[in-house]
């Protein structure tokens, strides 16, 4: 594969770009806040998604702080009420999933998918902006729901608990509407990504020349497109049950609460992959870049991501093993869940083979990528036990599950988001984040996450249930120990935010087009334009031969 830049569309590029500054012959470029509010540029929208994720990360983190605070109280003492605790549990999950993980990946996806495939912008720039701005009313609805008592039914919102009889406050309806808007945002984004990737690849770029991050986003978009409407349907049924007295999930009217669980998990299990696949793609880029090698088993990686996408829709029942599912169905979901570990394993093995024999530069991005392999492997491994039928009956709804999915979501997704940020920040802003501070961020976060989540495996095995506001005396010591880990992650977050602000406000734009000096080996298009890229992305049209 070789990329050439044709000399058509050659334009003079100014010395320093305002990133994404829109220019048009008729109107002068907008500046200041209006530039952000009115933009349809994929890069600016991507940056806004990232900012949203960063800010919401602290909001969701504060909620986790409230949870850990309550859980470290001495036996029988109360820091927050059970009502508030349940709201924190519900909203911590909702915020982290819908306003941190999904927007963070959407942000990097928006910014880098068009760059990586050599496109000028996303296929539908205005829809792209619309998808982002939908998240704002969504967040407003969710947060103002606190004024009306919010939702205490967990992010899963199982009826009848989330029904009008047991959660009569309007906060639940606001939460549902908020989720609907976030879902619309996701679906619009997915349509945009699929169309962009299918139609706007640089001339001559074949499917199997597409970088893995773009592949990951393609598969990811299909998951969103297939899964999210099902969630929307389930939530709408819940809403009509609540507001108009329908009986979809009401046994007194012939409905079945279990139906909701099936519909919910049909979306929400693939959603787990939605929240990590782009990270998989980016980790491949980062590992290969700093090992000075090409990605090992590129095609195998593409097939593995695709298999994860397909199998991801066949395993939702493993969230419901304790619900008296038919024995054959339990066995089906169990073996499917086991099998989904195969493509996941292929990815881990291929990452290891990618860096094997490499010449590794331990930049902060690389440290996060290497740390990702370790923590994600642990999270995937505990997942195997949650596919083991007799074992999972015990482990489900215990802290073992909490440990498992935090290892995947924090040890996987958040670690990959950190890695992506350190990797692509110079491209997005033209400035380098501090490697020195980055080292502290990495170690503080790595220690914090293992400190917090590893002992939770034991707590679950000890018999502590999830989502409980207080617990038996014997769990106090270990819970207090766990809560200390929170502060390490908090320190990492504060250092990270501080460094980003300092870098943006104080440092000059010094990053060259290929800030890490990796493109001789990698040959991807994101490094073939200025840092930050011009509004039109490429001065010369990339062409594949």
């Amino acid at each position, binding site marked *: 594969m070789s990329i050439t830049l044709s000399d058509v569309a050659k334009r003079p590029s100014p010395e320093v770009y305002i990133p994404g500054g829109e220019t048009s012959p008729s109107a002068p470029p907008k500046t200041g806040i209006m530039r952000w509010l009115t933009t349809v540029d994929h890069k600016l929208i991507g940056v806004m998604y990232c900012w949203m994720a960063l800010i919401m990360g602290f909001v969701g983190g504060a909620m986790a702080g409230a949870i850990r605070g309550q859980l470290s109280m001495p036996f029988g003492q109360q820091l927050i009420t059970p*009502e508030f605790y349940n709201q924190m549990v519900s909203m911590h999950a909702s915020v982290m999933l819908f306003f941190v993980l999904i927007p963070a990946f959407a942000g990097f996806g928006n910014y880098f998918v068009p760059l990586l495939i050599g496109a000028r912008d996303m296929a539908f720039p205005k829809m792209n902006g619309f998808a982002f701005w939908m998240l704002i009313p969504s967040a407003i609805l969710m947060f103002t729901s606190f004024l009306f008592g919010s939702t205490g039914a967990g992010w899963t919102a199982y009826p009848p608990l989330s029904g009008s*009889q047991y959660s009569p406050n309007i906060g639940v309806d606001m939460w549902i509407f908020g989720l609907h808007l976030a879902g619309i945002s996701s679906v619009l984004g997915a349509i945009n990504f699929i169309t962009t990737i299918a139609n706007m690849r640089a001339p001559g770029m074949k499917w199997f020349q597409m970088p893995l991050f773009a592949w990951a986003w393609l598969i990811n978009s299909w998951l969103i497109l297939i899964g999210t409407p099902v969630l929307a349907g389930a939530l709408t049924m819940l809403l009509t049950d609540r507001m108009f007295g329908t009986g979809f999930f009401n046994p007194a009217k012939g409905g079945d609460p279990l139906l909701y669980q099936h519909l919910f998990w049909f979306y929400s299990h693939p959603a787990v992959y939605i929240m990590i696949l782009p990270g998989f793609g980016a980790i491949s880029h980062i590992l290969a870049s700093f*090992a000075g090698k090409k990605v090992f088993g590129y095609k195998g990686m593409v097939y593995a991501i695709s298999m994860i996408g397909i199998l991801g829709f066949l395993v939702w029942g493993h969230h419901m093993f304790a619900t008296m599912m038919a*024995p054959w169905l339990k066995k089906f979901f169990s073996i499917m869940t086991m099998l989904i570990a195969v493509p996941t394993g292929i990815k881990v093995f291929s990452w290891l083979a990618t860096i094997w024999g490499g010449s590794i530069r331990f930049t902060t991005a690389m440290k996060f990528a290497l740390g990702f392999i370790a923590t994600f492997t642990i999270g995937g491994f505990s997942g195997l036990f949650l596919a083991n039928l007799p074992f999972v009956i*015990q482990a489900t709804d*215990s802290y073992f599950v909490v440990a498992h999915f935090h290892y995947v979501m924090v040890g996987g997704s958040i670690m990959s988001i950190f890695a992506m940020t350190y990797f692509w920040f110079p491209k997005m802003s033209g400035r380098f984040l501090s490697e020195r501070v980055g080292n502290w961020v990495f170690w503080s976060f790595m220690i914090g996450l293992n400190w917090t989540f590893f002992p939770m495996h034991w707590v679950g095995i000890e018999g502590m249930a999830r989502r409980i506001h207080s617990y038996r005396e014997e769990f106090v010591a*270990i819970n207090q120990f766990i809560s200390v880990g929170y502060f390490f992650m908090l320190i990492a977050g504060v250092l990270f935010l501080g460094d980003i602000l300092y870098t943006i406000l104080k440092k000059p734009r010094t990053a060259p087009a290929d800030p890490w000096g990796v493109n001789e080996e990698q040959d991807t298009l994101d490094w073939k334009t200025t840092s930050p890229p011009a509004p039109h992305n490429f001065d010369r049209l990339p062409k594949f031969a």
Partner: protein
Amino acid sequence: MTTRKLNRILLVAATLLLAGAVAYAQRDSRGLPDITNWIQDPATPIAQDVRDLGVVTSLVLAPFLFGPLIVLGYIVWRFSSKRNPVPAKFHDNVPLEVGWTIVPAMVLVFTALISYPLSTRFDNPPQSDVVLNVTGHQFYFTYEFPRYGVTHTDDGTGNNPLVVPAGKYVTMNGQASQVNHAWWVPAFGIKFDVIPGRISHGWFKVDREGLYKGQCAELCGTGHAIMLIYVKVVSDEEFKKWILEKNPEAVFDETTVADASTTAAAAQAPEIAMEAVK
């Protein structure tokens, strides 16, 4: 201090802390006699088998955890830019890739298959000596022994534990009155959701007498945390005494429903079954 040195210190510190956490958890579970730990103190044959299967599965799967982690550690040590200034050129190896697809698939299918017999046993009680109906309310469980005409409420304080006989097969039918709950006693190796409009099943046979703790394991509202379960396993005579205290007219006919499937057990509780039909 160089960054490199600092990182080494941090790595060692992190490892020590993790080991400390593990030791801490172990110490906790050993200190108290009636702890709920289901790996260390299984009380029923099923729980014992779940534990044993867990150990076997861990051993079979352990290479998939420690393999990548050890290789990762080696790579970080061996292939740093200092030790290995010139990166290798290879970027695929089809036999290797086929190998690491097929071998894990076989191992994983194997671990799934060896769990099936136990899962089947889990779903099918071999016989039924005592039928026990459990109903989840916000926020307590009530119990009914339909054969003895006895009902009992466990208020979650530990003062009114459910009493069951040791060495007997207890088959359970579960239902919920308002919202979802889950009945979970870890040492019994049993957990089932109770969902309004549905009947769930479970069974256990505990040989060791004692007080066992459990709790509701499905978010059910503000009192979810205090929805505790206490089960006192006593000798048959004591159990009969307890039943007679509650209902002096109870008759012990000693019939055992052999090969009780869960449906047969459910038939022992006609009033619940009717409710489900409604």
